[in-house]
């Protein structure tokens, strides 16, 4: 079925990622410029898998200190107390506060883990030249793109809590080093998703047929 569905690349055509125009590079050339918007054109994003892998490994490494180091320190007359993200979730968990705890848990722990796992899965299957579940895999990629930015929630929660609770010497909150690593995880996974070229999912199918 897919043999009858040619791609632009098979026809030697490049579609512009910026403006969508379809154009043909000069004979023998792999790269060119879009005649309409002047963007650099490639058949596929250059070094897509390598770049996405690099961002993803960096994100996975940052994820460890992001969860091990405190994101918030509270100082009261009784002394200072530091909380990591997970400890913050436990603190929020109460008979009335559990929906908040759930939002933070999903946005800051489950979403980043799921994103890293999903992108790793996509990169692996693309490298292996998998031809199975292409529709599901491209849907997974679109979900990762859509959901990624919502992990920033915890950065904003921590920031605006710390800004407001400055009631020295009664009680004050301070942001902690975990926040830097956590923000890095969010940015790096977003960059990894952007570097990945979903068209690679479909290329394997075609080459295995012809």
């Amino acid at each position: 079925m897919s043999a009858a569905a040619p791609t632009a690349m098979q026809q030697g055509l490049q579609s512009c990622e910026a403006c969508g125009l379809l154009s043909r590079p000069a004979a023998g050339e792999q790269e060119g410029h879009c005649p309409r918007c002047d963007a650099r054109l490639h058949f596929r994003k250059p070094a897509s898998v390598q770049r996405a892998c690099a961002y993803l490994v960096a994100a996975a490494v940052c994820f460890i200190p992001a969860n091990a180091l405190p994101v918030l320190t509270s100082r009261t007359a009784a002394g200072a107390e530091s909380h990591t993200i997970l400890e913050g979730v436990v603190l929020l968990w109460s008979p009335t506060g559990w929906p908040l705890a759930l939002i933070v848990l999903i946005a800051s722990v489950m979403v980043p883990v799921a994103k890293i796992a999903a992108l790793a899965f996509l990169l692996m299957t693309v490298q292996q030249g998998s031809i199975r579940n292409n529709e599901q895999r491209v849907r997974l990629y679109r979900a990762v793109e859509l959901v990624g930015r919502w992990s920033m929630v915890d950065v904003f929660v921590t920031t605006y809590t710390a800004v407001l609770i400055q009631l020295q010497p009664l009680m004050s909150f301070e942001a902690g080093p975990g926040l830097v690593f956590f923000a890095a995880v969010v940015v790096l996974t977003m960059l990894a998703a952007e570097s990945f070229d979903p068209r690679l999912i479909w290329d394997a199918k075609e080459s295995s047929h012809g």
Partner: protein
Amino acid sequence: MHNRPVSDPALTACPHCDLLQRLPQIEPEESVRCPRCNAELWRRHRDWYPRTLALAIATAILYVVANATPMLGLSVVGREVVTTVFGGAEYLWNNGWESVGALVLFTVVVAPGLQIGFVLAILFGARGDHAPRWVGTLLRCYRMICTWSMIEVMILGVLVALIKIAELATVIPGLALFVLGALIFLIAAMQALLDPRELWRKVEWADADSRQALAGHRAEGSTP
């Protein structure tokens, strides 16, 4: 070196699976999806230009109000603390977390501001049948900036913080909080209405010769 455009302007490739296909002519309020991967290729809206313009002007006004008025305050034992949207970034920057401060500033102040400004400039540049080259440049930047404009994420974060703080002190929601609540819906509507395909059709080509050649080719093709 510029590529040569294909002679059939309806021919297009899906950005998510590269499937080559011919875009059908659709009516307003209709959309086209890729038959293989189901990505939305084009959606048309009735009167998209005046509606997008109205939304862009409204979001610009709300954006100014949201950044100029206090967002959230708290009062406890006679003391009051008030913060604006910008106050979050300022706090992080002044307390040794410059990198996160810059990220917060970019995602909640700079990126949304640029996003709204770009739409206004693009619509102004494309008010006639032909748009100058810089409209194309802004369209490219606009697409990149959208992912990093995170007002709606910030609102969720602020609401969680607000409920958390409410256990410790009296929370005073500021004008900006309500304005931001309206702003996220208007920005989403503006983003959905803007039709990049229509806009690109108006933009002047980087390689003017190939467009003329293309127009000539099309004229020949259409005469029987």
